[in-house]
């Protein structure tokens, strides 16, 4: 830009600021309206996508829960809230809920602890550590189907290397859920690892060194300094992993299809089974129940734990 142009550009700005007339507030208001409109315009894509893919399905779900179609999928009959209380109080829902909770207890604590341990092991300034970090995080990039097939090969009762290990025997209803849980743990460990590692790297080295000079041994450093500072990360992972556990479907479909004898039928799997017109209403209620459950658990975690979690400074 030439120097001659500069004053020409600056001049209108000056007169604008000087104009202390009645026109100024009006112009300010109209520009504020314009700004607001622009803001709403930016919201439109998000609203459309959420509306089509989240709120409309939710509306349909409520609809299905309240109306029951006949077996040919036509002629809906209003069945009302009594349908909801009947299904949520029924044995099927309770059974699915119990299996889901067991699945959660198998996967979340173990997965979280293993992920943290792996990340602690990999958080070193060593030559070639990136290779290990890459290997540990690789399960993030592995599809559920591939992970399940790999584990099917390992834990299959007939051909698997670990097929006869009683603790994870897929052919017995007493242990099949643990076999599925193992797959799920393996599948999610890469995510836990990557996020915990990032959390560890965000803790300044000098803090670790200060703790060293303060006479903290490795163990005390871990639970007095590292873990408290990692708390927000762990909190986030806890919520995410619990939601994953509530929603687990693919490993069950690949490994056991809910069997043997329904012992791996989690809530999501039971909902998936109820797609035909005769049972879709029941499925919709279960889905609403699961939604409510996830919502409440997440809310509880965020409110209760947030009070005890230290976020930055």
């Amino acid at each position, binding site marked *: 830009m030439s120097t001659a142009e500069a004053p020409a550009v600056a001049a209108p700005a000056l007169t604008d600021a000087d104009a202390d007339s009645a026109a100024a507030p009006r112009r300010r208001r109209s520009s504020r309206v314009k700004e607001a409109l622009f803001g709403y315009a930016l919201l439109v894509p998000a609203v459309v996508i959420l509306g089509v893919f989240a709120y409309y399905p939710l509306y349909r779900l409520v609809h299905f829960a309240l109306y029951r179609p006949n077996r040919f999928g036509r002629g809906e009959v209003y069945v009302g809230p009594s349908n909801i209380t009947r299904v949520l109080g029924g044995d099927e829902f309770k059974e699915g809920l119990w299996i889901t909770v067991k699945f959660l207890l198998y996967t979340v604590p173990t997965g979280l602890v293993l992920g943290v341990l792996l990340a602690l092991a990999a958080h070193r300034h060593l030559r070639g550590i990136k290779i290990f970090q890459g290997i540990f995080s690789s399960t993030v990039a592995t599809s559920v189907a591939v992970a399940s097939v790999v584990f099917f090969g390992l834990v299959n009762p007939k051909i698997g290397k670990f097929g006869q290990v009683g603790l994870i025997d897929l052919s017995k209803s007493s242990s099949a859920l643990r076999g599925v849980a193992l797959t799920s743990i393996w599948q999610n460990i890469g995510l836990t690892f990557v996020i915990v590692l990032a959390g560890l790297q965000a803790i300044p080295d000098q803090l670790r060194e200060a703790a*060293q000079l303060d006479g903290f041994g490795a163990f*005390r450093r871990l639970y007095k300094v590292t873990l408290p500072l990692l708390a927000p990360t762990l909190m986030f992972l806890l919520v995410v992993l619990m939601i994953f556990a509530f929603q687990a479907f693919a490993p069950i479909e690949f490994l056991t299809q809910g069997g043997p004898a329904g012992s791996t039928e989690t809530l999501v799997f039971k909902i998936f089974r109820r797609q035909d017109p005769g049972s879709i209403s029941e499925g919709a209620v279960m889905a609403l129940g699961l939604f409510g459950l996830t919502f409440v658990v997440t809310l509880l975690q965020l409110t209760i734990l947030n009070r005890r979690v230290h976020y930055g400074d």
Partner: protein
Amino acid sequence: MGEVQFENVTKRFGDVVAVDDLTLTIDDREFLVLLGPSGCGKSTALRMIAGLDEPSSGTISLDGEIVNGIDPRDRDVAMVFQSYALYPHMTVFKNIEAPLLGRPMSIDGGPERKLDRAERAERVGEAAATLGLEPFLDRKPGALSGGQRQRVALARAIVRRPRVFLMDEPLSNLDAKLRTQTRLELVDLWRRLQTTFVYVTHDQVEAMTMATRIAIIVDGRLQQVGRPQDVYQRPANLFVARFIGSPPMNTVDAQVVPSEGGPAAAVGTTTIPLGTATPLTAGKRIVLGVRPEHLHIDPNGPGPGQLEAVVRAVELIGHEQHVVCDVDGTLLMVRESSDAPAVDPGATVGIAPDPAHLHLFDVDSGERLG
């Protein structure tokens, strides 16, 4: 006791030599400042005392005992980090208390044991009182100002009464006014504690004002150790000469010439008496150094023995003025009192160096001559 000894200590990081054959004894109860430009290896030297870095070769001793390979927590040293490294999730009280929780220590010369809660609280209280932190004990570091955080870091360091304090640029995150104030407080703290301080900085003002001795390190090599006035008045080499002093020492190339009244040097066409007893061979090329306060402007000059100069700029600082003069293309800085007769930019003047305060350096090695 708190004597620290480096003996032929070298530290390499891959191909980079951070500390090169450092031999230095830091006396008990000394305030030693490791001074040098950033990346010169001074922080690495400090970290090796703490045990956070291990020497590649050579030995480090504390009170005569070699500490190579000894865990930081068993060295009985405390460190204040540049970032303060406070535990953000703990209150000020807990932060200061932290060093007391770790290991047993001798109480009043008695056998080593762990402190109980009341004893810890007493010590934390003492340290907090020393640094004026009592009102903040229940706060977390995030709710404190930079200066208060810095005090917490100091309190955490003194609470255990270690034999050596290590400080890594502790003032660099403070604003200028607070830095000046904290400098005084640190010296005061050092006097009260009667303990060895090893202090790393790149700021020569901090070094000059606080140190009992300054060790100047450049490119991992120790250049000179001495009292502040020694390194200022008798810099060991050109690097130290140019590094210490603000504005820095003027240096010009010169050649020793035969002269009747003692040794003299030619700068351009002017002959300047050197006022030194050091025997110098005529014709030898040297670098002549002179501090801005040892140059004087003769507005009526140039007279005999004065350099002819053109005034380029005059900076009035208040109590003094800095006059930038051009001597044959070399810029020299002259420090005059503000009462000195005014000179105007563009004027031709004479500059007379004070022969008693000339510094002579070898042109090749940069080492001081005489």
